[in-house]
């Protein structure tokens, strides 16, 4: 199982609609060797959901994350490095050639994190690798704000997206349904308190829920109490510096 944010212990996986959709989408993409996108604002659990879905697969997985604005050469270089374990050498066409050969060897899954950082050329380059009739890989773009806008703007990219999962923040109803099972400190929590935490600290974001829980659990342990109460919740919100 992938690690929760901040290494939160004793937390269970929240089977949100998006998590289940991501599971299904990754499976479909791998089976069809197709391209897909898991998009949505930061902290909603996209990367966690993908990591969990990938765990269930037996195919080799290459995960890449690009900071800043990568060039096509950097994309090729990082991909090759992931396959060979050593820095890529040779001309760009030789690198592309080797990549095409490697990607034709067997079915794989490539996950590109922070895909919103990719330029149009980089998307185009990945599409070039994917469109080659010999290559066999599924490609998942894991992207935050702006990722889908870039993909959707170019119909040549948009039309190739076989599965799309658009993450959104947990609603109050989601919180009430799922959070009591998330961590032991919420097992008997007052529903109004959970809604308050969501409103003031988590804002429907799973990453924020993990951060809150990590801090609250420590306070609970220090206070010798098993469950969260309003006082601990307020103290945690203060510690996190969360604002409504």
């Amino acid at each position, binding site marked *: 199982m992938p690690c929760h944010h901040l290494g939160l212990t004793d937390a269970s996986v929240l089977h949100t609609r998006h998590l289940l959709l991501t599971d299904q989408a990754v499976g479909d993409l791998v089976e069809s060797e197709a391209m897909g996108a898991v998009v949505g604002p930061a902290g909603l659990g996209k990367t966690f959901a993908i990591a969990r879905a990938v765990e269930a697969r037996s195919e080799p997985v290459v995960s890449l994350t690009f900071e800043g604005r990568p060039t096509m050469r950097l994309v090729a270089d990082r991909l090759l490095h992931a396959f060979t374990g050593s820095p890529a050498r040779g001309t760009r066409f030789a690198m592309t050639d*080797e990549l095409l050969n490697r990607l034709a060897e067997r079915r794989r899954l490539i996950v590109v994190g922070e895909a919103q950082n990719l330029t149009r*050329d980089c998307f185009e380059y990945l599409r070039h690798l994917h*469109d080659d009739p010999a290559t066999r890989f599924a490609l998942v773009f894991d992207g935050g704000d702006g990722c889908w806008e870039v993909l959707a703007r170019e119909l040549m990219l948009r039309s190739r997206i076989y599965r799309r999962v658009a993450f959104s923040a947990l609603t109050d109803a989601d919180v009430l349904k799922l959070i009591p099972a998330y961590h032991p400190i919420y097992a008997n929590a007052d529903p109004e308190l959970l809604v308050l935490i969501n409103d003031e600290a988590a804002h429907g974001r799973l990453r924020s829920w993990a951060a809150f829980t990590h801090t609250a659990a420590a306070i609970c342990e220090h206070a010798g109490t098993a469950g969260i109460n309003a006082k601990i919740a307020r103290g945690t919100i203060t510690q996190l510096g969360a604002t409504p």
Partner: protein
Amino acid sequence: MSATIDVIVDRHDDFATVRGMHRLAAAHATVLVVTIAPDQRTAPAVVWAILRALGKRTDRLGSRTPTWPDAKRWLVANCIRELVVLRAQHLTDETFDALRTLADGDDLHLTLVVNDGRHDAARLLGSEITTAEAVFDRSRRVARPANATPRWPAVPRSHALRLRFDCLRALEPAPFQRVDQLLNATCRSAEAWFSAHARPTQPAIERALGVLTAASNPDQAHIRRCATQIASWRFGLADPEPISTMPPTKSLKVDGIRDVRAHTDAVTGARRLAELLTGLEPELLDLVGGDQLTEAGVLGDEIPESTRPAARTLGQPHGPVLRRPRPARRRQSSATPEAGQRARRTDAFPLIVGHLLEGRANCVNTDEIPDRALTALEDLVAQRILEIRRGVLRASHVALYSTFGSRWTPSLSTDIQMSRATDTA
């Protein structure tokens, strides 16, 4: 020649078009589909896109940079008649022009798939706008490559020591020149092999001659056989019987075919093909002549259709083609026969013939010749290969001409000189 250029404007690089074009290429061997990656701005990258589509691999490219002549050579060798360029919008003006020149030169039907016709409007001026469906439905003939190997002329089954002369008299200039080149090249190859091996074993000689005389055509085989006989005698060796100790031509597996097709360098690819098919050791592969490795076959045996492009690019020189040409080792009359080879001369006949073929100044008194050898030599006299006057044997001009003696190297002037001399006689 001027190529036809069609343009398909596919605004969204529709995947159906991509798939359809690849299916088209899979169904028709004369159609090649290449995809231009967004980073393929340079000529080598575009050339490589073509070569890759033809099965070439960068790990078989060595340190070479692929060039347009490479693309041209292999497109022709693979009998490609239509080139479909997907994502042609990524071509620079320079590479677009080079591609058009390539297509013009080879009368190649070029189909460019672009996603924005307006962007490329200027350079596509004059091209036909068409659709993917029209390209799919285009009528195509099954292209059989024209056999580039002309038939061998029928040559007289003369004695080796007068074959050249008899061909000069019997054949038209063009076929004669072809025979002459093969005879000379094979003779030189055999001599080079004898020079390089001071003490060859009899099986080694027979195997080498087995390669040198292998041919897919009886006339070609006769010329090659005569050439090795001349070389043997010039080295004072009894005419060894060439034996084919090569294993039967092997069938190539898919990996082998891929390996052969992966090479961009024509010689390396052809050498790999010959190696895989014949199983010959490197030294014997060095002896394979251009006329022995053609699309028709290697050393007389047929080669798989899928590997023929590797043989088509070699051209048809008659000398060894599977290695870098090395300076011919010119045999100095004073240096031969070498000590090791002298030791091998146990038979008087080749010893005497080799001595006489060194020039008219060399002669042998018949009284000094053992009876058994003299009988064989008198047979050559009857064929006007040797002359006997007052009990002295000499090589005739016919023999010296036929064995490329010092005055009779291949050239039009020596041919004319020989014709006149014998006409007068």
